[in-house]
């Protein structure tokens, strides 16, 4: 049967596509895990680097990533939720809303290196924050904003209209309804989105290239105006700078594994949470 043959061939092709995708991405994880694992040790995670980046650990690098990410989320979260609340709860359907929607979509599509330049021109230079945690966090925060808005929007839209009406029918005000009923109900969904964007932000390199990251700093960052080492930038820097490429490469493997583990763990956790929420409500 010719029909059946072409069908089987086609389906086999699709299967190959799926397999290749999983294998290609799986092999990246595998190689980095296999080679990075030997570098990992307790001291690698808890010590500061020394001997021109060829010895010691990456503790300040991990801490730096943590600070920058935390700062970015602290900046983007309230703004993102407020924006989503406006779009879902307050906005009459109008041109204004469309303009806001379009700008969110386009902001989400801006290349990350462009965010970096924006941060350089505005936060580092114009506001004079210098190359610092603050500049990096603000830059990454803007990058995370569209992600947080759309996940918060999704969570707010999932709140049934009927319980909004119930609250209003009891004499609650609009803001009272949002604060007491809508936001608490949407909270798990919003959190899931936030966790997902933490994963994304923690792995971004280009935006912090000129706004926050340094190849080497002595010890831990001291204030929000300090330069920091950050995991993603550190991997890049270890591969391209410094005087001992071979020794640095081993550390780069370790950093990659740590970053990969962090990001996959955070994202995996968020995806797991979302899956569970969907099966609870849907």
């Amino acid at each position, binding site marked *: 049967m010719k029909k059946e043959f072409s069908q089987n061939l086609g389906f086999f092709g699709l299967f190959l596509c799926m397999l290749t995708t999983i294998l290609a991405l799986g092999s990246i994880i595998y190689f980095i895990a296999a080679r990075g694992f030997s570098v990992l040790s307790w001291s690698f995670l808890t010590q500061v680097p020394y001997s021109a980046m060829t010895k010691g650990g990456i503790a300040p690098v991990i801490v730096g990533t943590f600070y920058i990410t935390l700062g970015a989320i602290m900046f983007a979260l309230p703004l993102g939720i407020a924006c989503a609340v406006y779009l879902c709860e307050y906005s*009459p*359907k109008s041109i204004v809303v469309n303009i806001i929607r379009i700008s969110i979509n386009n902001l989400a599509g801006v290349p990350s290196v462009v965010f970096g330049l924006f941060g350089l021109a505005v936060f580092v230079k114009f506001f004079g924050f210098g190359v610092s945690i603050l500049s990096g966090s603000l830059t990454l925060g803007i990058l995370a904003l569209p992600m947080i808005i759309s996940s918060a929007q999704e969570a707010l839209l999932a709140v*049934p209209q*009927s*319980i*909004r*009406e*119930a*609250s*209003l*029918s*009891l*004499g*609650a*005000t609009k803001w*009272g309804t949002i604060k*007491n*009923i809508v936001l*608490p*109900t949407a909270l798990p969904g919003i959190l899931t989105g936030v966790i997902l964007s933490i994963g994304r932000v923690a792995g971004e390199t280009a935006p912090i290239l000129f706004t926050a990251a340094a190849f080497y700093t002595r010890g831990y960052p001291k204030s929000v105006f300090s330069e920091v080492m950050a995991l993603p930038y550190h991997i890049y820097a270890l591969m391209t700078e410094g005087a001992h490429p071979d020794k640095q490469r081993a550390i780069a493997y370790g950093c990659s594994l740590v970053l990969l583990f962090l990001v996959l763990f955070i994202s995996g956790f968020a995806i797991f949470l979302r899956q569970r929420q969907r099966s609870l409500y849907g």
Partner: protein
Amino acid sequence: MDNKIKMQAKNVDFFYGKNQALKNVNLNVYANKVTAMIGPSGCGKSTFIRLFNRMNELVAHTTLKGKILLDDLDINSPLVDAVDIRKRVGMVFQKPNPFPKTIFENISYGLKVNGIKDKAFIEQKVEDSLKKAVIWAEVKDRLNDSALKLSGGQQQRLCIARCLAVETEVILFDEPCASLDPISTAKIEELILELKKDYSIVIVTHNMQQAARVSDYTGFFLLGELIEFGKTQDIFTAPKDKKTEAYITGRFG
């Protein structure tokens, strides 16, 4: 008619965009009586009942002409806040819609949003409301459980209790039994008859038997018009309009 008028609709026209959903409706809601609205689906009865607590304001692009009075107060006057009207005119919805909170919080919510903080008072009020809604016996040992764990019928009685906790004067029931089984329906109907001692009640239903069982007055809606309004007994035994007769004898609907 010798009863006191609680709410009144005067020459009400209502539009969704350009579609006219209600045409010149005049109707009285009498104090401590049950007023039922019947008619086929899409006839405007649900739209109409939602005007009594200004719920239709939540829908975009709607226009209202005419007046709705609550004790002679024009509820749509620019000086009147919808929030204050909704405190006096409560609503029970088609589908039970408890908040995803505990049973206790569901009832106390209305009190809290109205600024009541006295704990003992709130506890007492929660108990009273649940008792009035005849659900106290079933939930008294699990007030801190999620309201979503209750059965559909229990949830609907919880929603009624939630409405009673606020010092409401009128209760609007928008097809309250549409999603319930016959036993739960019977309980709700009993409850409505009990509640009319203290409240004025409006109920929308597409179940004519239900209207006949619980209401004192009945209005028949068709295509946005109030075809006939009068004492339930009269409507069901001697309808004046041919269309009403056709509907209640089951020739369409």
